[in-house]
């Protein structure tokens, strides 16, 4: 079992969800984050003075996935999120020690679905 954590541009979220659904991955958790990587910030100007904003809004998607689906999931995320410009984001893959479905108490592969 793996936990896929993807950081993407907020405006790509709809496209990423779409391609995940097409790959039959329908379970995920989405949070708003601020982050930076290679992408530079942007300048705001307030009453004559510069404001530098370098923590940019990003969206973080977490998906718990069985090993067989790992590559399809990664491919789907990339398909939705990639624009070719700096700031497209990153995907981390972690090992998932356990997964429990709260409603039924199922464990492991059945719980991930």
């Amino acid at each position: 079992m793996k936990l896929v954590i993807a950081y993407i541009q907020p405006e790509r979220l709809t496209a990423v969800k779409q391609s995940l659904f097409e790959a039959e991955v329908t379970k995920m958790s989405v949070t708003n984050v601020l982050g930076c990587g290679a992408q530079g910030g942007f300048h705001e100007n307030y009453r004559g003075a510069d404001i530098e904003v370098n923590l940019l809004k990003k969206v973080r998607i977490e998906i718990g996935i069985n090993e067989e689906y790992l590559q399809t999931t990664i491919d789907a995320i990339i398909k939705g999120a990639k624009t070719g410009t700096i700031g497209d984001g990153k995907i981390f893959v972690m090992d998932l020690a356990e997964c429990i479905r709260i409603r039924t108490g199922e464990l492991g592969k059945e719980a991930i679905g």
Partner: protein
Amino acid sequence: MRSRWKLAGIIATLMLGAGVFAPGAFAEDAVSQEMFTVNNTWMLVATFLVFIMHLGFATLEVGLTRAKNTVNILFKNTAIVALGLLTYASVGFNLMYPGDFGIELFGGGFFGFAGFGVDPGEAGQTIAYADGAYTYWTDFIFQAMFAATAATIISGAVAERIKLGPFLIITTIYVALVYPYLGSWKWGAGWLDAKGFYDFAGSTLVHSVGGWGALAGVLVLGPRLGKYVNGKIKGIAGHNMPLATIGVFLLWLGWFGFNGGSVLSADPDLVSLVFVTTALAAAAGVVGAMCTSWMVQKKPDLSMILNGSLAGLVGITAGADSVSVMSAIIIGLIAGILVVVSVLTIDKAKLDDPVGAISVHLVCGIWGTLAVGIFGDFSFMTQLIGVIAYGSVAFPAAFILFFVVDKVVGIRVTEKVEIGGLDVGEHGMEAYNGFQIFTTD
């Protein structure tokens, strides 16, 4: 020596007396100096009530659009008031009230211009100017407040995707020239006035003129990104319902001045009647929209009943002084139903109007104008002629403005700016700096 001064003094007093009393002395129902002050004071109160409607428009539009575009909305609404007032002083007032029409057509004045700038002249600030109803400056500033509202109507419909510069150019020209010129046909005693067309406070002259502009803008601009996807309508929710509600109540408050001041005096009979027809039409608009929204959408939609109150207000604006209170309620009720149906229909036609400006101002403006012919002592045919006449000039004028400016400089922001938000893209600042507001659409 002494007798010469005495003679001069007597002559001076006589002339002074003649100057003060002469205008009143010839009229049968001469208005007293006290009544002049009362009338004028009410008109000035009405003026600042109409003024506060701009805050209403601003907050309503902010509430019904996304947070990332809030600075842009506020900027447009602030700029329009300024530009509207200044252009009305330079050219609008004398275009709307030319006095003498240089060109006559259709049995009345068709075009006239009384010159650039505003000047009360010798009698402008006296009781003689408007039979003791108001002074020249009151007349000017009251009407000037109306002018900017026509342009403001457009700003809601084109929100979230129009470039700031082109928008200001288009609306400045529209409010400086098109609005006042069309206004001269009726309020300026032009040909439609001669025909017997009636528009008490501007269902046609202000609201439908603004509405035609909004429609033209929506057509040329196109919908927001992500609004119509694969043939489906995607809701793009407003980000602040409290602000939208504040906006509507400010507009309702201002409307007491908008309609109340259109009596053009403090006449107790008419002003008090107008207050009642205005308020009850708004109330009926809320109820009409509420019922329609609840039935059609299954759950009652706040933004729809907010639009409903405005629909009722626009609907009664043409006849607030000339229909019965019961009729006002019916007019408002129908306007409330109409606005909900219209919002849904216009969306189905793939015309993206983020705040429902076309539905509230154009559709209900037309309804209100025709309603005067149904519920009041005016000819329905003449009202219809007026509606068509205004549409046949206002819409093409606005469309040409939008179309030409689009071809020359482009009126739509880039995709990057539209996605990231006009606040950062067009203004380099945020509305809610320090707050983490995320949008993924």
